[in-house]
């Protein structure tokens, strides 16, 4: 037999649920083991410092990548630009 759907709670059921939640919260909170606040403060300070360092380092990392890229482009341009002269120099060296 199919159980009737009973989505609505009566007042006494709601009180029972509130009591249940209250008992569960009290027993769990009483048993909770949390680290000392100074440890959490220290961890947060370290995280904050690392984040600050990472943010300070970011423009340097970007510039370094840009530097390498520009160097490669300059090398290619120089090679292309000097290729005819190099070719004629090699040709002149041949007997």
């Amino acid at each position, binding site marked *: 037999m199919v159980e009737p759907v009973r989505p609505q709670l009566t007042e006494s*059921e709601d009180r029972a649920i509130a009591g249940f939640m209250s008992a569960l919260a009290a027993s*769990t909170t009483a*048993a*909770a083991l*949390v680290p000392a606040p100074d440890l959490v403060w220290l961890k947060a300070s370290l995280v904050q410092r690392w*984040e600050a360092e990472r943010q300070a380092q970011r423009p340097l990392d970007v510039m370094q990548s840009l530097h390498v890229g520009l160097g490669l482009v300059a090398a290619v341009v120089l090679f292309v630009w000097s290729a005819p002269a190099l070719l004629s120099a090699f040709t002149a060296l041949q007997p």
Partner: protein
Amino acid sequence: MAWRDEAAFTAFYGRTARGLWAYVYRTTGNAADADDIVQEAFCRVVTANVEPLDEEDRRRYLFRTASNLMVDRWRRATREQWGRESFVADTTSRVSATNDSRPHLDTAATFAGLKPRERALLWLAYVEEHDHRTIASALGVGKGSVKVLLSRARARLRDLLEARGMIGRSHG
């Protein structure tokens, strides 16, 4: 700008840490996850600019942050199985070690029969007494959905309590 006054943080931590741990532990069902999430949430509170907020708003921010971290984990983990299996094993170890009465274990096991989101909804509504808007923001659901989801969660818990004989069966 980060939180600068360590003494104020220590006082705030003393008032909120155990309650937050209890919320995360009962929602995730895993003590190690609760440890990680609570520490991460407090670290974010320290690095965020919450010092000018009043106590109640700081507390809401803290629970919202922890809830977001849990939701991130739910999305990463393989859904509903996460939490429920480890919950039962964990209940008999860490929390029960300091609080070992049978009714407590019954209470914990009954609550573990709910889905993680239902557990979070009920905790925020009944224990933290957050309004629907705050719960919606904490759990990343629409404000309109909270009422429906909460109603279903309460009905599910009522059914579980009835099935375990913890409340009398009504004939509605």
